[in-house]
């Protein structure tokens, strides 16, 4: 019999979404036991890397309106966002900014003591609330520290969740490995919030933490929940070379220029009204076009890039407002932005897609919610605006935390715990992976998956590339690579890495199939062979359900309330 522990509420993932949910739940009912389970140590989640800002309307007296935030979000999404969901985000956000502030968030301030905001791409008002340029880090710290107030929140640091246990309808627990000891556990619970974050490590050139792999998405997918809109991947215009670490959009929000080889602010040819502050998909495409047409630079590692020029901001302003990227740029590319422009290139940065949920974050299993980047409640549609993601994490963290408590407080008829599923899972990971065999190095398989996506499903896509990519992924899948050389129990990251790679294959497949099927260009998904948006045939979401052979693809309608889709121009 496997070791077993029990909580009322299990929160998988401790990024912004997970921690916000934990606080909301703990506050709402101090009696329920909450377990926050994360494969990293709790405060080390990917969210600490978020840099630029969190969008919210807090300057109504200066002329900002919630309405405008909603419209910017919907327009930014290329009209694929569910408009009621976008509305919920924008309405709930202002209060959350103040709530974080009351908990200790060190927001940057104006001289008069009020919270300051900066410009961000795609907005018609400067509404990215910031704290220097380490917004996610400070938010994580604020939430982590606030969690310390509550005795009913328990942190399970470095527990790798492998699967969701349910009886076909209702949630009953998860299975997980405690990394430090290597013990396999069943964690029983009444409700689950999945907040396992994005999966951008399926691309090799990526801003994400190395822990941002799709195992969270994959466990929901294997549990029968749909992945939605996975073909929409956001490429941030300014990943620094060669590491791919992000240079925040705030750098352009503060006035930075993008330059091509002729020293020209080329964005004037692509989005004259917004220039460098057009939405990310547009800027990234512009950069790729410039490079493809020979107006890029060649970095000393051999790849093409563009220059991000901050010199005119001056050293003092760079230090005061962009200290984090100054540090990154000096350390990781030997460039002080006050003296030299930074070498940048579009980089995988966000997944608009995720676990299919409704407006409340509820998933397709009873007792399961999803929040944050792992979820796809369709607030971002085909392209997320910068600073809207941390907002999303916080808002749906709060919503799902609260709804999960309501659910737990109600009486439920609980069916017999499906122990056989735990046995099956144990077999899958121990016989199939831990004791698996094969002669191909799994880490090289990982490199190939991520290189494939980088090559074949980057900013611009086309049918033959995507099909090639899919073929390559399937070849890799068929190889005998699934094995773990490290036989120790304790802190066996070789084992967890191979499980991550296993999930990458399945999710990469969904991304590619989704992209092949969507024969149009919308938001982050730009097809050279179908260069225009096609509302008649593709104004719908994509759903993918797990099947051992091949994902089962379905369509899902877009909720349109006030804003009829129009051509998207900046």
């Amino acid at each position: 019999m496997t070791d077993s522990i029990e909580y009322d509420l299990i929160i998988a993932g401790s990024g912004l979404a997970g921690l916000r949910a934990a606080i909301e739940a703990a506050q709402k009912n101090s009696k329920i036991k909450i377990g926050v389970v994360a494969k990293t140590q709790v405060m080390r989640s990917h969210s600490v890397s978020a840099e630029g800002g969190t969008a919210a309307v807090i300057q109504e007296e200066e002329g900002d309106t919630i309405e405008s935030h909603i419209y910017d979000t919907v327009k930014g999404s290329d009209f694929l966002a569910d408009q009621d969901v976008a509305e919920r985000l924008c309405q709930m956000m202002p209060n959350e900014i103040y709530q974080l502030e009351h908990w200790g968030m060190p927001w940057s301030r104006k001289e008069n003591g009020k919270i300051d905001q900066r410009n961000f791409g795609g907005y018609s008002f400067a509404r990215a609330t910031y704290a220097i340029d380490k917004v996610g880090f400070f938010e994580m710290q604020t939430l982590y520290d606030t969690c310390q107030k509550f005795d009913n929140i328990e942190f399970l640091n470095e527990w790798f969740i492998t699967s969701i246990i349910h009886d076909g309808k209702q949630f009953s627990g998860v299975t997980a490995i405690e990394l430090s000891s290597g013990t396999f556990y069943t964690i029983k619970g009444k409700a689950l919030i999945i907040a396992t974050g994005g999966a951008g490590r399926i691309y090799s050139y990526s801003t994400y933490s190395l822990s941002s792999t799709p195992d969270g998405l994959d466990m929901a997918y294997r549990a029968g929940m749909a992945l939605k809109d996975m073909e929409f991947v956001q490429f941030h215009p300014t990943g620094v070379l060669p590491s791919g670490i992000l240079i925040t959009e705030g750098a352009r929000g503060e006035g930075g220029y993008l330059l091509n080889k002729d020293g020209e602010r080329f964005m004037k040819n692509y989005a004259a009204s917004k220039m460098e502050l057009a939405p990310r998909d547009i800027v990234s495409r512009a950069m790729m076009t410039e490079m493809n047409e020979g107006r890029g630079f060649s970095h000393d590692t051999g790849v093409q890039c563009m220059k991000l020029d901050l010199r005119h901001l001056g050293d003092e302003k760079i230090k005061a407002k962009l200290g984090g990227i100054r540090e990154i740029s000096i350390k990781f590319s030997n460039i002080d932005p006050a003296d030299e422009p930074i070498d940048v290139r579009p980089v995988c940065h966000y997944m608009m897609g995720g676990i299919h949920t409704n407006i409340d974050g509820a998933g397709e299993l009873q007792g399961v919610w999803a929040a944050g980047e792992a979820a796809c409640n369709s607030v971002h549609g085909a392209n997320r605006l910068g600073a809207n993601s941390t907002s999303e994490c916080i808002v749906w963290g709060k919503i799902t935390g609260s709804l999960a408590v309501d659910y737990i407080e109600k009486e439920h008829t609980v069916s017999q715990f499906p122990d056989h599923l735990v046995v099956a899972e144990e077999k899958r990971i121990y016989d199939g992976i831990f004791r698996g065999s094969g002669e191909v190095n799994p880490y090289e398989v990982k490199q190939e998956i991520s290189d494939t996506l980088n090559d074949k499903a980057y900013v611009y896509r086309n049918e033959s590339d995507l099909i090639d990519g899919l073929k390559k992924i399937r070849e890799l899948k068929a190889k005998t690579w699934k094995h773990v050389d490290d036989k120790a129990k304790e802190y066996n990251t070789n084992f967890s890495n191979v499980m991550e790679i296993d999930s990458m294959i399945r999710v990469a497949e969904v991304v590619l199939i989704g992209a092949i099927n969507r024969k149009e260009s919308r938001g982050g998904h730009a097809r050279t062979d179908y260069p225009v948006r096609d509302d008649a045939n593709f104004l719908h979401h994509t759903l993918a359900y797990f099947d051992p052979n091949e994902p089962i693809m379905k369509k899902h309608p877009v909720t349109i309330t006030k804003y009829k889709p129009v051509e998207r121009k900046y």
Partner: protein
Amino acid sequence: MEKENKAKEGIKGWINPTKYGKFGIERFAWILMRITGLGLLAYFIGHIYETSHILDGKAVWNASLELTQTTEGHIFLALVIGMCVFHTGNGIRLMLGQMGYGLGKPGRPDYPYKPQSLNMKGKACIYATIGLAALAMWYGMAVMFG
């Protein structure tokens, strides 16, 4: 788990000389402060014992004074002087710091980070104290041998 959580470097972490190159002069001042404190305490106890001989009459008093009238004795006394000067000087620096003076002002740090509390004033103070201690030892030797 409990036992494991007690992990520590041990006395090595205090006296390992490679530490001082890596962690700077403040760390060196720290270990000197400990050693001189203990040294002074040892001397002080000895000193109290020595002076108590005054009660036993002139002969005993002189005999006990004789103990330090040798070359080794002089060197020992010079060391005590040095320890005393360093401990006092560094003690004053530490007290000022621990009362919040001379640490610089908290504020946004800029990369590359230079800890303000380990500033030149403090470092100069440590070097000066060491210098002063050496001077005092030299002077003491001059008096004693001279």
